[in-house]
């Protein structure tokens, strides 16, 4: 009997998970509240980039970028895949030092990256202002238009036997009348299953109160067609310096050449903003920052401004793994600005997580509260076949055939596990909250807080009705 898995959310992450699970032989049902590829998937920049804010992020983005290259040849034209490379632009010597540090990290993670001096940057992108200090070129980064990719991945999942239910909202993934792994839809129907994967982005908190997701708002501008204006994705290195400033608004220089000849101009981040209204102050600051790097940009006709809300976690890493308070519920969300890049990596992790195979996951806590990707855990990834093989499996007709080519005749471990549901991991044994996890605690009125000794991590989110406490390690554990 197949394992039946319901995926909540048909964005790029849900679609990629559905495709991977269906290909592995699971009985997959995807429930999307509108249609595939809408929501945050449609609102962002479509970056496929390696980022190195933390070792875990570097590992996750690096391992996620490779399958994108594997897919690129088979992606539909509407996906607008372009291997533009990323040119990190350093305005001064401090930023150049940051570029060098970044280069060392990337090269250490076997990602191709090359430092450019001021003249090389000017030659690569003549429209950048003169007087820049230099830059860092990461040639294998790319840009993509995500909604058609999500639709295409879901179509592939359907060919592998998945069911897609659209225009339907999931209202509950747990409750007294729901068995673990079942979901209830807005129309009252329930979908039976063995596990639920919630990949609902900013809609996740509605389903599971208490998760540490916060909305993060971004502004973007698209211009009219100006082919050849820039050839690389350009990101100012100020981005890196401020990347940890969660809780304050900030803007960065970020310009992408799209396959249509248009320019996508960004970016901004505002944490804990629920409104999608355009904020003129932020928008102005963003445009000023971009035109400071590229003065000619000021004259390019802009045709649309929009905002999007991304689901972000306080530490910038996604939540991938079982949710301890609801048996049978797994998370694959909180990817924030990197959801496009990391979608395929997430799709690699989730099947493993569902079957309790701990290869790519945090090895210290084999069933972690949150699949926090430590650097150690990512060592296990490096020897797995990728690149060409990934391409192969997308070309393969039958899914078994694809696996045989890739894995020498055998299905991967997790896929074999999926076929034998009695081996599913028992979920009841987990402690309710693990250390390192942010817990939302109702602000106490008059009563002594149960955990007054715990440090308050965040309390801005809901006007002080709740506060965030970071759980301390109960024992000697090494989880970061």
């Amino acid at each position, binding site marked *: 009997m197949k394992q039946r898995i319901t995926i909540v959310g048909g964005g790029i992450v849900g679609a990629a998970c559905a495709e991977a699970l269906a290909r592995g032989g699971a009985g997959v049902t995807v429930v999307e509240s*509108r*249609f595939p*590829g*809408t929501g945050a998937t*449609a609102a962002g920049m479509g970056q496929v980039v390696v980022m190195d804010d933390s070792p875990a992020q570097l590992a996750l983005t690096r391992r996620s970028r490779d399958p994108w290259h594997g897919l690129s040849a088979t992606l539909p034209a*509407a996906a607008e895949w372009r291997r533009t490379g990323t040119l990190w632009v350093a305005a001064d010597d401090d930023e150049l030092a940051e570029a060098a540090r970044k280069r060392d990290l990337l090269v250490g993670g076997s990602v191709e990256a090359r430092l450019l001096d001021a003249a090389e940057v000017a030659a690569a992108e003549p429209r950048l202002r003169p007087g820049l200090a230099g830059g860092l070129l990461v040639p294998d980064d790319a840009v993509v238009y995500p*909604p*058609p990719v999500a*639709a295409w991945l879901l179509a592939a999942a359907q060919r592998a036997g998945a069911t897609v239910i659209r225009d339907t909202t999931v209202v509950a993934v747990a409750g007294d009348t729901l068995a673990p792994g079942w979901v209830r839809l807005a129309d009252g129907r329930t979908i039976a299953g063995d596990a639920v994967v919630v990949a609902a982005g900013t809609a996740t908190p509605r389903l599971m109160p208490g998760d540490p997701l916060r909305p993060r708002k971004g502004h973007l*501008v*698209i*211009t*009219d067609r100006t082919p050849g204006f820039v050839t690389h994705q350009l990101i100012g290195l*100020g981005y890196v310096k401020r990347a940890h400033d969660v809780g*304050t*608004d*900030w*803007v960065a220089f970020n310009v992408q050449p799209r396959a*249509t000849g248009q320019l996508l*101009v960004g970016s901004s981040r505002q944490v804990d903003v629920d409104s999608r209204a*355009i904020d*003129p*102050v*932020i*928008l*102005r*600051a963003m*445009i000023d*920052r*971009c*035109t400071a790097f590229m003065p000619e*940009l*000021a*004259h*390019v*006709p*802009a*045709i*649309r*401004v*929009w905002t999007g809300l991304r689901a972000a976690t306080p530490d910038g890493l996604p939540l991938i793994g079982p949710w301890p308070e609801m048996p049978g519920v797994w998370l694959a969300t909180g990817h924030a600005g990197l959801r496009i890049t990391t979608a395929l990596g997430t799709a690699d992790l989730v099947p493993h997580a569902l079957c309790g195979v701990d290869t790519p996951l945090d090895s210290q806590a084999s069933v972690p509260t949150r699949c926090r990707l430590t650097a150690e855990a990512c060592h296990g990834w490096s020897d797995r076949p990728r690149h060409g093989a990934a391409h192969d499996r997308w070309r393969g007709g039958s899914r078994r055939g694809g696996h045989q080519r890739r894995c020498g005749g055998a299905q991967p471990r997790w896929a074999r596990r999926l076929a034998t549901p009695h081996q599913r991991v028992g979920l009841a044994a987990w402690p309710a909250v693990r250390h390192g996890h942010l817990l939302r605690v109702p602000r106490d009125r008059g009563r002594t807080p149960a955990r007054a000794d715990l440090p308050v991590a965040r309390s801005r989110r809901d006007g002080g009705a709740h506060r965030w406490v970071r759980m301390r390690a109960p024992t000697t554990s090494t989880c970061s």
Partner: protein
Amino acid sequence: MGEDASSHDVDVLVIGGGPAGIAVACSVAEAGRRVAVIDDNPAAGGQIWRGGAAGPGATRWFARLAASPAMVHASTAVIDIRRRADGPPCVVTRGPDGIGEWRPRALVKQGFDVRGRRVVIAGSGPLRLAVAEQASTGRLARFAASLIRHPRKLLQVVSIRRTIGPVLRAGTFPVGVRPDTDGLVVSLVAGGPGRERRADVACDLLACGFGLVPNVEVALACGCEVVRGGVAVNAAGRTTAPGVWAAGECTGVGGLDKSLVEGRVAGLAAAGRSDEAARSAAEVLRWRHFAVRLERTFALDRRLSRLAADDTIVCRCEDVKAGVLRCYPSWREAKLMTRIGMGPCQGRVCGPSVQTLFGWHPDDPRPPGWPVPLAEIVAPVTGSHRE
């Protein structure tokens, strides 16, 4: 958006300088209030009075506007609008949108010579005076009979009848056009469903325009509610958004007289003369009924929406064809998957078409209202800002 360095102190702000906008400006200014008119054309007058006076009525209104202290900011486009709670009242008067309907007329006004040419004008009236009119004879007759309540319109009908009556073909629409040795041959279909008669007409020029749609972009940006395609207003022109009035074609396509009456009343109401405005309520409602009758009479024949072949281009910015669009159930999904409405016009041109063809409701507009240089989409922010 943001604080504008060159802000003006006015009591009432009028967006759109067509007949309705001119009427608003005159009634506000004559009530002793400061008023500014913003219009994206080089001069006030709108589409119908484009390029200056077009008859004694227009001349009178232009003179009245010139004599009033109203400020007119021509060649100024509204790209976004946010009304502060303490800001001046705003009256939105925008002309209708329609595909291709103004081009032939505008071309002629700009000096395009049509003398001696055989022209087929196909479409839906009455503003376009189509010669091949898709509305049936019966509907036209009923409409003409109803005009007894609008003597001036009745006179207009008589003059139109005299001009184009002999060549008017009601219940007729073109289904194809092909080049011929000397010009074009247009295939026309006449008659009701199941009784179609086909006729070929030779001509030099074919002008087509089906359907006028109220332009509600600015009103939507102000937060006004839109009902059945037009801005929802009360008899005085007040919209559902506080401090925002609407007048003219954006409340429903009804022609010049409706715009002038609505403009005058909305101007009085926005200037605080509610009593005077209330006295004209009956007149406004009469013209609104006229607009409803227009809409019913000239409602598009359903057969027209079936004319688009699979290779008919619906979105001209992005070259999206009807056949591709038929695969999608909604505007939003088609937009994300095919790029329809993502070009420079942002769905302004194809939006009304997909509404007719597929019954979709395009997204509300997002700023800027028109392609503008990146540095100008938002005004410089005074004071410090965080980065």
